[in-house]
């Protein structure tokens, strides 16, 4: 049986306690929320924190609060709850579609939104046992100094594998970071850096405590995920789109964020003028081009990188059709095996 390495476990009962435990030795401390990403990585000895600070008893992290102008989701809310939340399903469809396709049902019962947003980057060269990594002589992300994906790469190319973050980013989410130094609020996109080794900009002792979603009337959003199977698999490609229309159905804002094509969720800049004529072949083609140009999948995951890059166009088209109101049930069934 694979077992966890030894560590000290802290079970604070207040947020300030949790934050000070984190700050005490941030370098060797990890936060234990759902644990569904951290514990497997620990069992493979990819990470070996000496101290874990559990959020189990920390209050104030598990509620979904609906305000007039925004929805505030505690970072320790589990993914099942988000997937099934009636208001989120209505107003933040992309988020629920993303979350509903993460891993599997039993994992979603435990995994948290904060955990998925802070998911470690992944790569076929790093998500392996110590024996395996020794056999390849290690790599940039841990214990080595070469990136085996592209040996001349100056940086680690491990890929951003979160489904929630692209969806949340498309919905213009913000994230609240708390530490012993206080609280700060960032655009979620600013939490990320395109560096496989250090993909999060937050300090090691900062804790994600809340996700904030602005509420917009007339917003439509969706998330499409490419993967080999209908469950378990991380995204090979994620496409999240959100558009907001006024009463005359004119697009007033639009966001497209790609997942799994870089070491961070990737915002694809889209000038609003593109949407002037609504959904037509030209819009689709232009948005496809923009996304395709930025998507740079690497050869360290399932299916070939050229296939994943090509599918960017396919998923963008599907996403645009969906946000403009088309019923995509059959396409979802075919591509994502989403039966229900």
């Amino acid at each position, binding site marked *: *049986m*694979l*077992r*966890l*390495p*030894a*560590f*000290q*476990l802290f*079970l604070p009962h207040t947020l300030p306690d949790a934050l000070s435990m984190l700050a005490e030795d941030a370098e060797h401390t990890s936060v*234990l929320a759902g*644990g*569904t990403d951290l*514990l*497997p990585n620990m*069992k*493979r000895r990819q990470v070996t924190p000496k101290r*874990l600070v*559990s959020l*189990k008893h920390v209050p104030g992290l598990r509620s979904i609060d609906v305000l007039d102008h925004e929805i505030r989701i505690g970072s320790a809310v589990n993914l*099942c709850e988000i997937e099934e939340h009636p208001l989120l399903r209505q107003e933040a469809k992309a988020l629920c579609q993303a979350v509903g396709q993460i*891993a*599997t*049902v*039993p*994992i979603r*019962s*435990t995994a948290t939104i904060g955990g998925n947003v802070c998911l470690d980057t992944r790569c076929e060269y790093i998500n392996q046992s110590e024996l395996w990594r020794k056999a390849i002589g290690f790599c940039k992300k841990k214990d080595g100094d070469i990136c085996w994906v592209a040996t001349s790469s100056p940086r680690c190319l491990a890929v951003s594998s979160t489904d929630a973050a692209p969806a949340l980013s498309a919905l213009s989410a913000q994230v609240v970071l708390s530490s012993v130094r206080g609280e700060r609020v960032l655009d979620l996109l600013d939490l990320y850096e395109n560096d496989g080794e250090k993909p999060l900009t937050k300090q090691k002792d900062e804790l994600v405590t809340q996700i904030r979603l602005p509420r917009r009337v007339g917003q439509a959003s969706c998330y499409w995920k490419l993967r080999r199977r*209908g*469950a*378990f698999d991380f995204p090979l490609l994620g496409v999240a789109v959100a558009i907001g229309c006024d009463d005359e159905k004119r697009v007033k804002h639009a966001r497209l964020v790609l997942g799994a094509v870089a070491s961070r969720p990737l915002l694809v800049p889209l000038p609003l003028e593109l949407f002037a004529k609504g959904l037509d072949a030209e819009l689709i083609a232009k948005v496809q081009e923009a996304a395709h140009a930025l998507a740079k999948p690497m050869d360290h995951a399932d299916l070939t990188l050229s296939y994943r890059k090509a599918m960017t166009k396919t998923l963008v088209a599907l996403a645009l059709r969906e946000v403009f109101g088309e019923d995509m049930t059959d396409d979802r069934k075919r591509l994502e095996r989403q*039966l*229900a």
Partner: protein
Amino acid sequence: MKRPISLVVNGEQHDVLCAPNVTLLEVLREQLGLTGTKHGCELGECGACVVLLDETPVLSCLLLAMECEGRAITTVEGLKRGSELSPLQAAFADAGASQCGYCTPGMLLSATALLAKQATPSRADIHTALSGNLCRCTGYHQIVEAVESVAAKNTADSHGSSAR
């Protein structure tokens, strides 16, 4: 640093001594003698170790035993009533849903959780609820049929009292 914890498993309290890095899976199998819960990977990639935590299906290989204090844990051993199989267990046995039997405990608990939430799930709901449990023997169909047969009985029963 081992410390004593108290776990409620299948309605019984157990006091065990364990270190923080010990998972619920390890405590169940190696300290409580409840070997019905299986393991295929210990990394959350197969669903063999599914147990119920307060009626919710979870992976026992990714839960620290210490974090399960105060929760009601149900394992496959807790499904029987005395020596009588639950309707779902009987359905599995009769429908051929168990071949090698290794995925069976996890499947039963995932299905139990589904039927607790939805007494009459559709076939699509069943496939979805079981999609986190890998099986290498059956090809899933007889497992789905077993769950369907219990759901059908639930439909036939009046006033939606859910049989489990």
